[in-house]
C-alpha cells in the first residue's frame, strides 16, 4: 500500500516548525506504524536528508516512550493501543496521514516528533511512592490485601506514563496520569500512612506544570491502557480530604 505523510518537523524548541509532505510507498499492511516510519527514514537517508526523530523503544506497548499524534488523535485511531502497536492494516491505501508530536505546554518539543516529558518525573518525585527503605519491609503475607483492592490498584498501576492523556486534553492537564499513581498507592494498605501528604504534594506539583481539569474525558479515550476516569474522582476526593487532614493543618507538624 501507499500512503502520504503530512508530518511535523521542527529543529528545536526555539525554532519554528512546519509540516512536510512525505511519500511512503510499497508499505506492507502487516507493518507497524513505526516500521513504516523506519522505511521513510531509510529513504530519507538514501536521499541524503536528515531522518525524522521520533521517540520509541520497546515496541510492545509497555514502555510508554512512543508518542505520536496521528490524524489528530494521540496514538492514532485504534483504541487502547499505543503507537508502536498500531499497524498499517488500520489505514486505507492512498491515505494522507497527519503525524504530529504531543502538543502541550507541559511537554516542550525537543526535535521533530520528540517532546520532553520530564515533568511527569517531577510529579512522581513529589510523592508517587511508598517510603520503605531497602531491607525494612515486613513479611509480604503479613498484610492481606482484599483481591478487589489489589485488582483496582493494578488497573491504575498499568499506566505506562506516555502522556497521551495530556496530549489529548484541550487544557493540557495531567490529571489522569497523576490520579492513576495516587489511586494505586492510596487503595493499598501499605499506602495509607502517606495517603494525604502524597495526594496534596503530587497534585500541587502537577499544577505547576500542567493545565486544569474540566472533566472533558478526552484523556481516558486516548489512553492506551484504558485508565478509568473514575480515578480522577478518587484523587479529587482524597485531595479535598487531604487538605483538611494533612497533619500540618492540625498542628501536629510545624
Amino acid at each position, binding site marked *: 500500500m501507499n500512503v502520504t505523510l503530512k508530518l511535523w518537523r521542527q529543529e*528545536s524548541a526555539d525554532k519554528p516548525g512546519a509540516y512536510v509532505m512525505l511519500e511512503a510507498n510499497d508499505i*506492507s499492511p*502487516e*507493518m*507497524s506504524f*513505526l*516500521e513504516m516510519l523506519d*522505511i521513510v*527514514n*531509510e529513504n530519507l*537517508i538514501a536521499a541524503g*536528508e*536528515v*531522518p525524522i*526523530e521520533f*521517540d520509541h*523503544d*520497546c*515496541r*510492545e*506497548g*509497555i*514502555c*510508554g*516512550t512512543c508518542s505520536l499524534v496521528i490524524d489528530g488523535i494521540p496514538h492514532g485511531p*485504534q483504541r487502547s493501543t499505543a503507537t508502536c*502497536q498500531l*499497524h498499517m*492494516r488500520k489505514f486505507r491505501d492512498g491515505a494522507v496521514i497527519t503525524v504530529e508530536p504531543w502538543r502541550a505546554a507541559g511537554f516542550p518539543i*525537543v*526535535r521533530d516528533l*520528540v517532546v*520532553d516529558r*520530564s515533568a*511527569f*518525573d517531577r510529579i*512522581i*518525585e*513529589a510523592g508517587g*511512592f*511508598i*517510603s*520503605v527503605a*531497602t*531491607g525494612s*519491609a*515486613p513479611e*509480604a*503475607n503479613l*498484610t*492481606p*490485601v482484599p*483481591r478487589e483492592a*489489589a485488582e483496582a490498584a*493494578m488497573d491504575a*498501576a498499568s499506566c*505506562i506514563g506516555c502522556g497521551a492523556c495530556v496530549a489529548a486534553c484541550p487544557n493540557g492537564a495531567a490529571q489522569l496520569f497523576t490520579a492513576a499513581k495516587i489511586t*494505586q*498507592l492510596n487503595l493499598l494498605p*501499605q499506602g495509607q500512612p502517606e495517603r494525604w501528604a502524597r495526594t496534596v504534594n503530587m497534585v500541587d506539583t502537577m499544577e505547576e506544570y500542567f493545565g486544569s481539569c474540566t472533566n472533558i474525558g478526552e484523556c481516558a479515550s486516548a489512553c492506551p491502557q484504558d485508565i478509568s476516569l473514575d480515578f480522577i474522582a478518587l484523587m479529587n476526593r482524597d485531595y479535598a480530604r487531604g487538605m483538611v487532614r494533612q497533619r500540618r493543618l492540625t498542628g501536629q507538624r510545624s
Partner: protein
Amino acid sequence: MILESKVPAGPLAEKWESHRFNMKLVAPTNRRKFKVIIIGTGLAGASAAATLGELGYDVDVFTYHDSPRRAHSIAAQGGINAAKNYRGDGDSIFRLFYDTIKGGDYRSREANVYRLAEVSNEIIDQCTAQGVPFAREYGGLLDNRSFGGVQVSRTFYARGQTGQQLLLGSYQALARQVGLGAVKLHTRAEMLEVVLKDGQAVGVVVRDLTSGEISTHSAHAVVLATGGYSNAYYLSTNAMACNGTAIWRAYRKGAQFANASFTQIHPTCIPASDEFQSKLTLMSESLRNDGRIWVPEKAEDSRPASQIPEAERDYYLERRYPAFGNLVPRDVASRAAKQQIDQNKGVGPLHNGVYLDFHDSIERLGRDVIAARYGNLFEMYERITDENPYETPMRIYPAPHYTMGGLWVDYELMTTVPGLYSIGEANFSDHGANRLGASALMQGLADGYFVLPYTIANFLAKSLNTDPVSTDDPVFHEAARDVTDRLNMFLGIKGSRSVDWFHRELGKILIEHCGMARNASGLEKALSDIPALRDEFYQDVRVLGENETLNQSLEKAGRVADFFELGELMCRDALHREESCGGHFREEHQTEDGEALRRDDEFAHVASWEWTGLDTEPNLHKEELEFENVELTTRSYK
C-alpha cells in the same frame, strides 16, 4: 592474570552471612563523602541507586531514556521467583538454588546462585511494601504460578506486567531519593566511555543526547547496570535502544568479558511477518502452563489448524519430555521448535512458527478463566497478528531474548577493573548457560537492593577521606577527546548505507552461525565475515545531521560499531566451547537423539576474555567452577 572470585570459605548456607560480617563498613556519617556513579535505571540500576541514596552515599545516576521508568526491565511479563514456599509444595531456598544451577546446565558459580536464592524472599517483601500490586487470592494473600524448568509454583506475578510493576516500584524508590536530593538523575544522557587512572575506574564520559554536549564525571566507584546485548542479533525481543556499548567500552578498558556466547533464545515469540520487521515481540512463557505446543505430523502441511485432525498433530514436547511436557526449560523448547521448522513442519504464512494451542484449556477451564490469566497477552497477540487466539492457535517461534554472558564479576560484583562494578543482566554471574523463567527480575533486584549496597562498602571503605580524581585530570580530558573524535569520525565517513542496514546484516550473520545451533565451520565463517562487514561499515556508513542536536542515527552508529566487536567475541567464545550446554548448542556435541552433550571434564569453567586490541585475539582466562553441593548430572526433563 588469575581470576579471584572471592567466594568465601565455609558451608554454602553460611557464606553470604559470614562474608557480610567480614566486609568493611562505611559509617553513616561518612557515606556522603563517597561519590558513586550508576549507569542504567532498569531493575538493577534503579534499585541500587535508590538503596545507595537511602544509605547516604552521594549518587549520580544516568539513563539514555527520557525517564528512568522506560528501561527495558519494564517489558518482562511473566513473573519473579522466590523461595517463599507459600504453596507448601516442597519449595525451599536450596531447591531454588538447585533448580537455578541445574537450569543453567552447571555453568554458574554455586555461591552466587545460593545467595540469589537466599535474598529472593526479601525481594518479595520489599516490593510488596512498595505497593507493587502482585496478584492475590480471594483471602488477600499472594498468588503464585509455575514456570518452565521447575516443578513447584514459586512465581509471583502482576498480571502479564510483572516487569513493569517491579520497575515502577524501584523507579518510585529512586524518584523518592531524587526528590530528597540524595540522588542526582541525568536523563537522555548516554555513557560512552569509562575513565581509568592507574588501572582503577574513576569516572565516565557522557553525551547529552539532546544537545550533544560531552561531559565528564568522576566518582569513587562506577556501577554498570546496562542490561544485555541480544540486540547484536538485530531482531530480538529487546527494546530498540538496548545496546552493549557501556559494557563493551569497559571491556576495552580492561574489564574481562565472560561467556559471551551464552545467549538465550526465548521459545515463545511472535514469528516475523516480513523482512522489514524491526523487533520481535515476546509472549510470556507462562502461556506454556495452559497452551499445548504442536506442529502437523507431516511436513509441508498447509491446511489451517482447524482442519488438521487430532491424530495428525505432533505434540512434540509432550511426546519427547513426558515429565515436563510443555514446561521444559527455554533452551530445550527453543531447539525443539527449530528442529520442527527445519523439518519443514513450520506453520503460518511464512512457515516460520509452531502452534501454541489453548483449545483444550478453554474446554477444560472455560474461556473466562483463560481470559483472566492471559487476557492482555491474547489482546496483544491479536493486535499484532490480527488473529484471535481464543479461536485460532497462536503461532510462536524462538527469538533472542536474554544474554547470560556479560562482564566477569567476582562474588562482590566487581569486574576485573578495581572500582568498576556490573550488576543485573550486564554481568555474567548467576544464570550459567541458560536462565530459568522469572529469574531475571529476581537477579536484577537481588543485585541492586541486597548485594551491591553491601559489597561496594567493602571497596569504598579503603579510600575514606580521599577525594575522587578531579575531572581536570588529563585522563578525563583524553577520554572526552577520544569520545568526541569517534563521534566526528562517524559523521565524517559520509558513505552510502544507513546504520540500520549494517545492523541487519550483522544480525543475519549472528543468528545464522551463533544462534540456536552452532558449529565450528559456521563460527569460523562468521569470524571472517564480521570483520569484513565492520571494515565496510567504517568505509561506507552514512550518518547524517550533526552532533549538536538530538541525532538518533549518530547514537545508533556507536552502538552498532560496538556490536560488531561484541558479535565477534560471541563467535570466538562459542568456538572455544567445544561442548553443548544450555543455550549453547554445538552440533558436533550432541547425543544420538539430539540432546545437548556437556563435557564437564574440559569445560566446567567460565571463559573470561581479555581485550588485547582490535585485530588481535583476546586472551582467554578460565575460572574453574567447583561444585561442592550439587552433583553434575545430565539434565533430564523426560
